[in-house]
């Protein structure tokens, strides 16, 4: 795999800069946009700059990482199950969910964002999560402030 900051990939890096988190960086993009315009107007075709080093296999993580991740997940599982038996009121569920989020981030950061389009895939996963939170959160805005009319049996 070619080094991330190969000196010849200048034009490509500039393009990636523009490509990135457009939605979030939109308001800050004005200066970068100008640079990108100059760069791609003057520079040669960016595809030419894709140099390939002589190698035969893609990079991989050491096996130790996998073992530690596995151990980490199982410890977190034990912790979350154990915590459920301590009466903490509403905090019980909060802790359970927090542990789940940590487990998720562990998997995601170590094994799930591997491609060259890493920032885009991160954006996609963040959007999915954020939208679920948005749906639940704004619905709860109704349920938590509503005047309750009890059901007949309660």
């Amino acid at each position, binding site marked *: 795999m070619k080094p991330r900051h190969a000196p010849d990939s200048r034009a490509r890096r500039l393009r990636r800069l523009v490509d990135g988190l457009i939605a979030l960086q939109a308001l800050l993009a004005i200066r970068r946009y100008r640079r990108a315009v100059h760069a791609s107007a003057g520079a040669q075709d960016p*595809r030419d700059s894709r140099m390939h080093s002589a190698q035969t296999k893609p990079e991989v993580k050491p096996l130790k990482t996998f073992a530690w991740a*596995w151990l980490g997940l199982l410890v977190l599982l034990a912790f979350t*199950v154990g915590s459920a038996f301590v009466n903490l009121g509403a905090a019980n569920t909060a802790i359970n969910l927090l542990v789940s989020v940590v487990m998720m981030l562990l998997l995601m950061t170590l094994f799930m964002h591997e*491609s060259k389009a890493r920032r885009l895939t991160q954006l996609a996963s963040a959007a999915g999560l954020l939208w679920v939170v948005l749906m639940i959160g704004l619905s709860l805005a109704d349920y938590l402030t509503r005047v309750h009319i009890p059901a007949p049996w309660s």
Partner: protein
Amino acid sequence: MNATVADSPLEEARRAHLEEQFDEPDQQHSAASLGMWIFLATEMLFFGVLFASYVVLRVLHPAGFAEASRETDLLLGSGETAALLTSSITIVVALRAIKLGQRGVATLFLSLTAALGIGFLVIHGFEYHSEWEEHLVPGVRFLKFGPHAHAVELFEVMSYLLTGWHSIHLIIAVSVVLGLTWRVWRGAFGPDHFTTLELAALYWHLVDIIWMFIFPLLYLIGRAPG
């Protein structure tokens, strides 16, 4: 585009798998991962509807949900969770092996992954069976009295929807992995060509992650004494 730069042997081999609408192997790979990730985001929202319904119903009936959750089998639940967490590691070990060209190791770990997935489903089948025995299948075979009977039924509905929809996903994931195990064994993948495997692993991880959230919400509430 006519690439005049000399390609490495790896790059040359990757080019052989290039589809006609793409110019570069990297471009094809990025498109595939991004596409898979967007699909995973939609999966999150598919489950999100069920999670949202669960949250709303639990906010309306906290006591009934706690009562119902206490009746789940925590031992089996934790066991299947551990199995699924392990499978997420075995599948990436298989992916690593394929990137290094170790076909045998990859086949072994992929079969292990599928076996763990099947194990999860079998354990879950036992749980479904005992719920059938205990008359806890909502709408079909449900018999319960007491102040929280309706709320318990709603919990069971959400439980069946979440685990059922999750099991369907896992069944798909297991079939995909079994198919890939066969193809890996036959030598269909290698250091220059493993995108399909990578996408399958992503999907497998998502199914695992969804379970990470289903598990505490169904099995762990109302456990603490007092």
